[in-house]
């Protein structure tokens, strides 16, 4: 049987309440009924009995400390909101923009350098 913590990628140190909050978000965003049912079943496995949750947590594979990892929600928040009516005037932010900490002032709005082909002089 697969370990729910590994399957869902959630932190084994979470309390029942924290797990419930995280898994609720996952269930609400599940792409299909099967996916939602899978999350429901994992939630039941992890929350019915305290000793079961501890056992699964103990057996979960080590993962980077939470401080080093960035949550998906935090990453999403880093994506700037694009005003829709202006979206055709503005460049689409790149992954790098996001990972570098989002837009920095006006730099964000300046168009990305265009590639004009190989430098023919070389």
């Amino acid at each position, binding site marked *: 049987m697969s370990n729910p913590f590994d399957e869902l990628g959630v932190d084994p140190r979470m309390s029942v309440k924290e797990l419930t*909050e995280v*898994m609720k978000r996952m269930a609400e965003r599940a792409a299909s009924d099967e996916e939602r049912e899978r999350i*429901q079943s994992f*939630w*039941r496995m992890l929350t019915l009995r305290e000793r079961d949750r501890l056992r699964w947590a103990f057996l979960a594979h080590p993962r980077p400390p939470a401080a080093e990892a960035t949550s998906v929600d935090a990453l999403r928040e880093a994506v700037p909101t*694009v005003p829709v009516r202006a979206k055709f005037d503005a460049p689409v932010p790149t992954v790098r923009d996001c990972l570098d900490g989002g837009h920095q002032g006006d730099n964000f709005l300046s168009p990305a350098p265009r590639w004009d082909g190989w430098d023919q002089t070389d």
Partner: protein
Amino acid sequence: MILKRAVGIDLGTTNSALAVMSPGGHKLVLFEDSFKRKTFPSVVGWHPEEGHFVSGWEAWNRRALDPKPVMSIKRRMGTQRAVEIGPNELKPDEVSGQILSALQAAAEPALKAELGIDELEMTDAVITVPAYFDAPQIEATKRAGEMAGLNVLSLVQEPTAAAMYHAWNRSIGDGTFLVYDLGGGTFDVSIIRSVTGEYQVLGIDGDNFLGGDDFDRRLAEHFRQHLVEQGYALDLDLNDSDDAVRFYLLTNLARETKEALSSADVHYVARRDMFEDQDGNLVTLEMDLSRETFEGLIQDLVDQTIECCKAAISHANEAADITMADIDYVLLVGGSTRVPLVRNAVQDQLCSGQTGAGEPIGDAPDTAVALGAAIQAANRGGLTWSEEDASLTVTTSLYTNDDSLTILGKYTGVEDVESIVLLDDTGEIASLSRPQAGDDSMRFELDGIEVSTRGDHAFDLELCDEEGDPLFSVTLPVRRGRDDEYRPTGSALSNPSVLAKDIYLQVTADGRADRQLLVPRGSGLPCSDTFRFRTADSSGAVILRLFQNRFPIRTIHLAIPEDTELGTPVDLNLKVDETMTIVADGEVAGQRFWAQIEAPPPAEERDWASIEKLLQDVEEVQRALWGYEARRFRQDTDLLVAGIRETARTDPDKLQALVIRLEDIVDEFRNRETALTPAWSRFEVLLDAIKRIVFRGDGGRQLGLSTAEWRDRLGSIEEVGRTAYADHNQEVWSQTFNQVQAIWESLAQDEFRFSSNTNPGEQVARMEGRLRELIDELRSEIGGFARSLNPETRVLQDKEIASIEAELAAKIEDVLDGMDLDEMPPNHAKPALDRLFENASLLRRRLERLPNIGVVSK
């Protein structure tokens, strides 16, 4: 544009109710008719002049007219026993379909007016079912909804719905609930836990044939006996239609009296010229009835409900380590919880320190289930706007008590959406480009929407094309409540339904019928599993017979070639979905099959002669058993036999159900095909128990025999038993079974009394523990003893019970409490405890003689 909101419907035995969650998610609206009545009688009749069905109050008002309307049809759900309604013959699901259809038709205009929305469609529904319903009863309920033209999104168990309502109403986010749901015809108890507003069901128990109607029948029978004493000819046979009407009228009077006694200590019952007795004399009933007398009549029924509560807690303990002390809230649901005896029993046995619960919560007992179903309906269905070929559904609640809100939704339409914008009166507050497109719909999420002030907010949601022009636009009725106005509703994560009873498949083992557990009770729904069996003969057919507990729910018969090899794999997949629909599919010999659960074919009704024969069989089996086996058999059958004798006069439907239950128990102890008593399965249970002790490898010589000697001895006993069973030789079979039982009982005694590998102090401690268990067992047997309905016998039994209870306290419990076992040397303590065991044994023998007290012997 049409707004669509799913409704919650409580389809009850006596009354039904319907409710809906307001679009803003902050208000539950219950359907009330023009007279402000909140419930809708679950009654269907026929209007002979106008030639159509009537339901609800209209049918209720026809109960004194011909043709008589049909009531309490829920008791027959899952069977194919048709009822006559005027010139029509309808099956139970069709009658329920009529009730649902009429209720929905009556409620829709009233709720539209109440919510102030003209274009509101309420054809999606969540319907409630008793938690303890069997699969065919659940299927029938779902079919009834479909027959009424409803799109049944889900079925939710009644206690769960009630817990959802009370948690919503009282802003309870975390806690464990015991829901005591005593309706008109069914009793359910569920243990439900809420973790930050997400629900999980931990344990269920109940009785599908126990409810307020039983209280009415007990009282009606009391009236009948009183009238017979007055000289009226009322030896009623309910199979006779005139007698059935007489008893029905007495039951109506009983119901009124029961309701009056909920608030008064004494009620003067007076009804002149109620009907004619069997001699044609007009019957008049006049008597004073005290609440105490009424409570005496129903005490054992209430005790049964408390036992069910303990069983549910025990199931919750198996599933989630829940104990009595973990229960935080006790909820009273169902009209019958208004009976003061019920409330007092719950208060005394569950809310007086045994659990963590304070006073039982019992507001809205008639409507809590429908209101909870409306919460689940809003949760499952969301809020949908539709027009022509496009629709938008917001799947999350638009209510928050926080300063921010997340909106999740999906859009289905022919045109491509390039962006989504949320606007308030100040302009754009959130937007999303390139929403996530699925196969047939587009999902979106707007997170962190600021709702800065309390009260109602109207946000416009626009789905735009690539030019930024709106393709689809709706106004979202968002509401922010007070900080303490937390409204838990559950979400897509909640597991609001579990399987109430085990699902088995009949298999053969060594040519004998046996059962294999497929899905255990308490499994969260949906669930599924795959199994592999093998063909066991060359009959040219594979028969998969599915049971829920002992109740057959579906037989799948597959013809396969006769030359199919023995041992050919039979693959079976079993899936129970969220609406509790059970679907089995699989493959055998290259042939695929699929089957859904359906009501079993109408069972032949047992007449009184066959019931008498069954009762004789019970006595025969009882005589063939002794010791623990006899006690277990009696424990299982005593209440049923008493119930059968009672309902023969008062409740034909319940009578049939009890007879089937009793037949199952007799079959368990005596094989019907071979007519041998006890059944092989009991032999196997005992042998297994013996093997567990003697082969556990702790080096002990149980009863002086080594492991090798035990192996030989058990092997030869099993062989003799097998041969006797195969030859249908009752005499040898009885001898062998008795031998096995004697070995087991001796071993069991040794286990706790003279175990060689423990020190004397431990032996004393174990003896004390066992003795205390024995005291509890005796108390429970005394409490569960079904007293005779005959008043004279009952007096004798009451007297004997009082004497047994007194001796149990004085000669065993007080003595045990007075012994300082820690200080007492073991060689003194053990004989003293032995004497107490002997006293307990004597009391048990007196208890065993209770049913036959006063009966002469040969």
